[in-house]
């Protein structure tokens, strides 16, 4: 679909804008861009979740604005912050799950990005699916022990659930990480000297369009071209 470079540019720029305290409703434009990206990648379920999140949080913020008093006002601000962080997180999640480590390293290699920046990010990208698999297996084990009855039990015992899930997951991630590290280091990953790549990246019209949209959103955010 899109080239890694245009995706990284868009996500990093929009995330910064959403989290920055700009005086405009930049979040709505960013939301529109993310929805278009999800559409382009045919991620229907994620699109639905995003719309639901937007309706609930923005709706709550709007309702709170109707009320008055310091408590309601503070709550309204808190909800808006929650919304902005959730949106930034959704962008990050999109990037992490869509970009494969190979293409990411290829793009970074082409752009001569130093290894100390590129390697840790590539490792994170590589690690996401491993952690997900691990998590699914642990959830199975919890259900088997009756530690997880359903969505309600998570709400009733959030701390217990987190404890049972997180500890074996960390242990599993460390184990898998050890093996992955051994395999990557033996094959020279992160070694000094210039890296090459056999991956051919395609920077096409769609990428140019995406980057133009991003630049336009950023320009609006800073008030360029408006009086």
């Amino acid at each position: 679909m899109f080239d890694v470079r245009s995706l990284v540019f868009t996500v990093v720029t929009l995330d910064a804008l959403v989290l920055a305290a700009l005086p405009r409703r930049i979040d709505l434009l960013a939301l529109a861009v993310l929805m278009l990206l999800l559409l382009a990648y045919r991620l229907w379920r994620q699109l639905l979740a995003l719309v639901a999140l937007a309706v609930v949080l923005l709706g709550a913020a709007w309702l709170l604005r109707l009320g008055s008093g310091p408590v309601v006002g503070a709550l309204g601000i808190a909800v808006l912050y929650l919304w902005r962080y959730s949106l930034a997180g959704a962008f990050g999640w999109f990037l992490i799950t869509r970009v494969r480590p190979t293409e990411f390293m290829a793009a970074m290699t082409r752009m001569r990005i130093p290894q100390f920046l590129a390697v840790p990010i590539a490792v994170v990208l590589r690690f996401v699916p491993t952690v997900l698999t691990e998590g699914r297996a642990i959830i199975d084990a919890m259900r088997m022990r009756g530690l997880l009855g359903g969505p309600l039990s998570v709400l009733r015992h959030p701390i217990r659930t987190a404890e049972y899930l997180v500890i074996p997951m960390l242990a599993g991630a460390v184990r898998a990480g050890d093996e992955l590290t051994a395999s990557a280091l033996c094959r020279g990953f992160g070694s000094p000297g210039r890296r090459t790549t056999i991956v051919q990246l395609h920077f096409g019209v769609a990428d140019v369009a995406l980057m133009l949209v991003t630049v336009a959103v950023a320009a609006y955010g800073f008030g360029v071209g408006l009086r």
Partner: protein
Amino acid sequence: MSEAVRLSGVTVRYAGSTDEALRDIDLTLHAGEVMLVTGRSGCGKSTLMGLVNGLVPHLHTAEISGKVEVHGLTPADEELHQMGRVVSTVSQNPRTQFFCADSTAEMAFAGENAGLEPDLIRRQIAAVTERLSMTRLLGRPVAQLSGGQKQQVAIAAAAVNDPQLYVLDEPTSNLDDSGVEAVRRLLGHLREAGSTVLITEHRLAFLRRLVDRVVVLDRGRIAMDVPAAEFFALDDERRRELGLRRLSEEAGSASPAGARSTAEQGAGGLEVEGLSYRYRRGLPPALVLDRLHVPRGRVTVVTGPNGAGKSTMVRVLSGLAQPQRGTIRLDGKPLDRRALLACSHVVMQDVNRQLFSDTVEGELVTGAGRRQTEGVLEGLGLDGMGERHPMSLSGGQRQRLAVAAAVAAEADLVFFDEPTSGLDHDGMLAIAQLARRLADDGRVVVIVTHDQELAAECADVVVSVGR
């Protein structure tokens, strides 16, 4: 003949450990030789491999005395990436040794990191996949490859690196028969091409005629260093003494001697009718079971190739997954998914995922429902360990602890998912005995495995899934 590896008087002790992992090892591997290193779990095989590729001491800190030479280099003094140009390593777990999501990219990975010209890397990949006749595995998403295919890609990736020495660390421990066969074929190619190979394995039979020399380690020492012909002629008694798996496919036939006919199978147990399960609408069913009877008080072994739906079957029969069609009865009574889940326990392939408590004792009482903990640890050889942390136990002890949790929860159905991958002979026998004990208690016991030796050891009933 020149020497590829030479160890003289090598002793290794890991940081924080009082025991030596290897003691006073003298070993020479000549160029062009294929050497098998075997022995019980924990005998020091992996340490030996680590010494050669440099992971010991670079990644696993250890104190090394004596002299280690690999093609004239001392691995401890070189950087890991420099050793990686000389030694290519294939490890046992295909899931964690891949960095790339695509098979071709994986084969190019080492060359890219070394900064080779892209065209040179492409030519090497083409030449190697041609020579190993595996061009059809090019450009495939790694997630869609079977375990055996992943290991083939890993070996091809090693060959693209054109190393002086191959180190294969238990390459088949997670593979089914066809996967083992594929590894055997590639190993044959490497041998014909005159490559130098150092391989560790628990499974030995498939390596007959593929190795030149065999080294058996026992508690960190060399117990035996002989030509392959001599090793594969060992009698069964000596083999068991050394804690080794069987040496030929024939010994102890693949079909279980103890299998009983349906008439003898006794009443009760799990009965399945018209079952089918699919992950999502639109996908073909991952599992179809028209009729299946898993008797009570017997050990039922489920075999079949990777991807035949064995693990799915365990998930459905244990109530972890809801089938779209079909009924499951226990002793004639139909059970829904919840009821099934409440009375089953799965001992997972990676038991670390199912240990939640910070003590062994706590592990028995963690979870919902009534617990029967009296005498459970003693019965499983875990007596006196109640206060220990589960992660401080050995692999075999952790497996027994997972079984102990099943016994404490009075699970009526006990499933084992590939319990013996990477286990030595003693470990395999221990699992067989565990399964037998659980069956003798009158439980329904199901073992999913591609370990023919385990099946021969403990199966009363064999069910084949898939082709």
